């Protein structure tokens, strides 16, 4: 949609952050424009066009705007700037660098450069003269916080090119020329380390998108053991307020086996973002020995920041994730909360007086959500290497009701469901994932099953199913006990119930705030599941149901002490020894 002359317009109406602009020339859907107000220019996006009126959503407060104020259309959609220097940055939803802004308060119309234009990067060429290349192919690399950051043929380049020249190894700024390519018609085009890409369009510079098959370790037992997510997989965490969505997401982003973590704080609390700002620079990345913040980018569009930019923020985050995936990296993308994004869509749809769908959400909510989730995934790049975006979004269902439109739409789009239960949160059984209702569709993938058998062991899948069955049977037994009374059921109902409690307390529950228990590597998860199942499969001697609960409480206590100790340390071994004694004494 690039035009020689910029289209101009004038404000014709204002309803909150929706502004109607009368235009004097061509405009495009989703085109970006700037409203001139006193000294500042306010950014806005076209969301509907009716005759000569363009309806634009303003990414800022519209206070003081008047009819007749001039508007200039930019001839492009909302774009992000891609290049080295994105990691460890704190951006708002439009990719403004928050640290570059002056003052305590966000100033309207203050847009800052996402990149550092003066910094020198050590560039190493990776392409040879005469190579045939296409969008996304690697021309060279720089080291960004120790991570190989590929300089690629810009994604906007269509067709194939041949490499005319690449600069030699050395220090360059992002805007310096690093390569010249020749297109099919013989025109030369220059390439720097920076490119732009419209956030609402998926980057498709890869060869294919196979089904994901590799487990992505998160260190969270309830996920890895029972309902694992894959590299390039999608999942969502719905739960009423206060049930632990954010704590769980933060835990995953600290611990998961990812090269890059992008966190979109979308319409949630500023203090939660501050927590990341404060903690991540202190925390070590166990794999690289560097600090977590060095592989992390934060998109902060908190609930008090403009609503339209909130909608943009998830797309900005996804586009940055796609950029890093194209470099052959494993990206973990987190969005908290996708419901706030849906609400931003709803607010705008209502202002546009569109026909509302269920709960006044836009009719096409499902399509929008699916479309977004489908941008995640595991890809094979043109050079045969692979990259992935694992995407986990939280959902904040109104009234805690999982039948509401955002949860329903997301259920269709995401493959893993980690439902948080109010009852579990109320009784402080954290993480409050309901292990019975939750699922991972990946467990049904033959390629995932094969991978698990190879990586963890050939009995693993059976053990996982066994544990799930025990949880279910325990729940049924508990219901019977509640109906018939402690005395009204045979003693093995109590045993069944307590075996499920054993799995609950030792495997499912995990203390996110304990330095050891917070993250459990897979080998330790396997060890503990083995241990728990061996207890559950033993046959014990009990005189009366009270002895059952008494015994299992002691066993649980012992196993919990093990969870709190360093794996295979002296204390761990001692607790295990004591436990074995305890078990032996009760054996049949």
């Amino acid at each position, binding site marked *: 949609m690039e035009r020689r002359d910029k289209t101009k317009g004038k404000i014709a*109406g*204002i*309803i*909150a952050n929706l502004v109607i602009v009368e235009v004097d020339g061509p405009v495009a859907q989703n085109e970006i424009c700037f409203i001139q107000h006193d000294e500042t220019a306010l950014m806005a996006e076209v969301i509907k066009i009716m005759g000569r009126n363009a309806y634009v959503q303003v990414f800022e*407060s*519209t*206070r*003081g*705007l*008047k*009819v007749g104020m001039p508007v200039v259309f930019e001839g492009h959609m909302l774009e992000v700037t891609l290049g080295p220097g994105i990691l460890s940055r704190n951006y708002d939803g439009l990719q403004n660098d*928050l*640290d570059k802004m002056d*003052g*305590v*308060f*966000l100033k*309207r119309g203050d847009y800052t450069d996402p990149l550092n234009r003066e910094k020198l990067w050590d560039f190493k060429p990776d392409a040879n003269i005469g190579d045939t290349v296409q969008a996304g192919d690697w021309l060279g690399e720089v080291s960004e916080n120790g991570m190989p950051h590929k300089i690629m043929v810009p994604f906007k380049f269509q067709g194939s090119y041949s490499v005319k020249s690449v600069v030699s190894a050395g220090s360059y700024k992002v805007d310096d020329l690093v390569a010249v390519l020749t297109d099919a018609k013989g025109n030369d085009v220059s390439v720097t380390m920076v490119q732009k890409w419209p956030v609402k369009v998926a980057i498709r510079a890869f060869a294919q998108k196979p089904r994901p098959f590799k487990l992505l370790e998160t260190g969270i037992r309830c996920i890895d053991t029972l309902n694992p997510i894959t590299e390039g997989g999608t999942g969502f965490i719905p739960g*009423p*307020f*206060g049930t632990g969505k954010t704590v769980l997401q933060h835990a995953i982003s600290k611990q998961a086996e990812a090269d890059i973590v992008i966190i979109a704080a979308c*319409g949630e*609390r*500023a*203090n939660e973002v*501050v*927590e990341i*700002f404060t903690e991540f620079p202190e925390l070590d990345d166990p794999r690289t020995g560097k600090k977590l913040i060095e592989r992390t980018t934060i998109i902060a569009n*908190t*609930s*008090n*920041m403009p*609503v339209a930019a909130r909608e943009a923020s998830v797309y900005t985050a996804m586009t940055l994730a796609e950029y890093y995936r194209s470099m052959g990296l494993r990206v973990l993308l987190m969005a908290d*909360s996708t419901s*706030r994004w849906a*609400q931003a869509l*709803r*607010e705008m749809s209502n202002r546009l*007086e569109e026909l*509302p769908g269920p709960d*006044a959400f836009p009719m096409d909510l499902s399509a929008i959500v699916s479309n977004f989730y489908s941008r995640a995934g595991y890809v094979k790049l043109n050079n045969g290497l692979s990259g992935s975006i694992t995407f986990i979004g939280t959902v904040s269902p*109104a*009234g*805690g*009701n999982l039948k509401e439109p955002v949860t329903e739409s997301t259920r269709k789009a995401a493959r893993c469901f980690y439902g948080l239960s109010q009852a579990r949160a*109320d009784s*402080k059984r954290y993480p409050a994932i309901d292990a019975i209702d939750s699922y991972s569709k990946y467990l049904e993938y033959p390629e995932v099953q094969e991978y698990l058998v190879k990586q963890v062991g050939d009995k693993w899948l059976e053990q996982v199913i066994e544990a799930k069955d025990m949880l279910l049977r325990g729940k049924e037994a508990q219901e019977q006990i*509640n109906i018939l*009374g*402690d*005395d009204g059921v045979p003693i093995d109902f109590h045993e069944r119930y307590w075996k499920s409690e054993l799995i609950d307390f030792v495997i499912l529950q995990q203390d996110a705030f304990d330095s050891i228990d917070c993250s459990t590597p897979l080998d330790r998860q396997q060890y503990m599941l083995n241990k728990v199942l061996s207890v559950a499969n033993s046959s014990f001697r009990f005189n009366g*149901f*009270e002895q059952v*609960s*008494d015994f299992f*409480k*002691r066993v*649980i*206590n012992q196993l919990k*002490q093990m969870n709190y100790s360093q794996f295979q340390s002296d204390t761990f071994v001692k607790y295990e020894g004591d436990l074995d004694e305890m078990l032996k004494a009760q054996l049949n």
Partner: protein
Amino acid sequence: MESQAFQKVYKKLTNITKATVSLKASDVGYDEMAIVHGRLGQVVKILGDEVILQIFSGTEGIPTNAEVAFLGRPPQLKVSEQLAGRFFNAYGDPIDGGPSVDGETRDIGSPSVNPVRRMQPSHLIATGIAGIDLNNTLVTGQKIPFFADPDQPYNQVMANVALRAQADKIILGGMGLSNDDYLYFKNVFDNAGALDRIVSFVNTTDDPPVERLLVPDMALTAAEYFAVDKNEKVLVLLTDMTLFADALSIVSNRMDQIPSKDSMPGSLYSDLARIYEKAVQFPSGGSITIIAVTTLSGGDITHAIPDNTGYITEGQLFLRRDTDIGKVIVDPFRSLSRLKQLVIGKQTRNDHPQVMNAAIRLYADAANAKTKLENGFDLTDYDERTLDFAKAYSEQILAIDLNIDTQKMLDVSWNLFRTHFHQAEVGLKKEFMDLYWEEK
């Protein structure tokens, strides 16, 4: 009320609804204030030359030939030290008979704090109420509401908390406050000798409901002045936010907006978040802590107002009458302070987190036992003990009439554990058992 020499006056209204008027006017800014027939209004919609104004005190008696004068500015407040000790209405005009305030004029509803300029909240606020300090510890810079049915003594608890919180300033934003409650606050603060630390913006039940919409922003503009300009620890009390939200729905209904759940506007989440997110800790030491009240109807927290509030605030304090002890308690199940982990076990004794969780788990066991009992089943010895524990725990920890320090709260908890349970039933880390199980 003010007037300006150069302002243009219009005299022809085209439409009048219960809350809004429209007229043809030019050069009007969005959000701008106007005086319509002597009443304050604010621009909420502009379409071409048609301007729609929301009239805060309602449109009763406004004629089509009413005088409309635009003020060329959004709602504002004059800020200075002179605010301290004063009572104002929703427009920031004194209602205590005192002089008007001199100071710098500020627009209310100012922009958000840049998140990178915030600091992580880290100062514990001690209230002496164990249901809060032990189970739901408050921190400066936090935002948290009381969820309570209208017959709970939430304003009393809030006043107690405010006075014990050691804030430099307490700013009361009263919305739909009954005259009695207004006088109650005035009295308590006066008796405590705290009046010079208080600033109040009050809309009582006698005032028009839509005026309430200005109260939180007025209160928070004053709060930002003291927290940012003066580096003070400011505590803002907002009561009752349910009545604020009701006023939002009145306006949006009158403007024919499509309502979402419970006839609330679709923007309720953003509207509430804009207010609550003003809670902040600054690196300079200044802070704004918001304690609010959200009244429930019949304890229903799935209603859009408490539901959206819960998604925004950093926890909630749920008040409930415990019929077993005949007192109001802070319900440990539905209450939560999400910032507590920043201070508990760090600024309090290190067994705090585990003791808190264990006690609540045992209290939950008691709830199960109670259900058993109601269903007519025999109780086990353990069930009996949890019931005894629960009653003592309610009495000695959860009741809102307490005033003890955290150390004492922990000691009381250990004492209850010891009295009612075996070590394995309590299930705490061994290091704590070794330290605290035996009575000292």
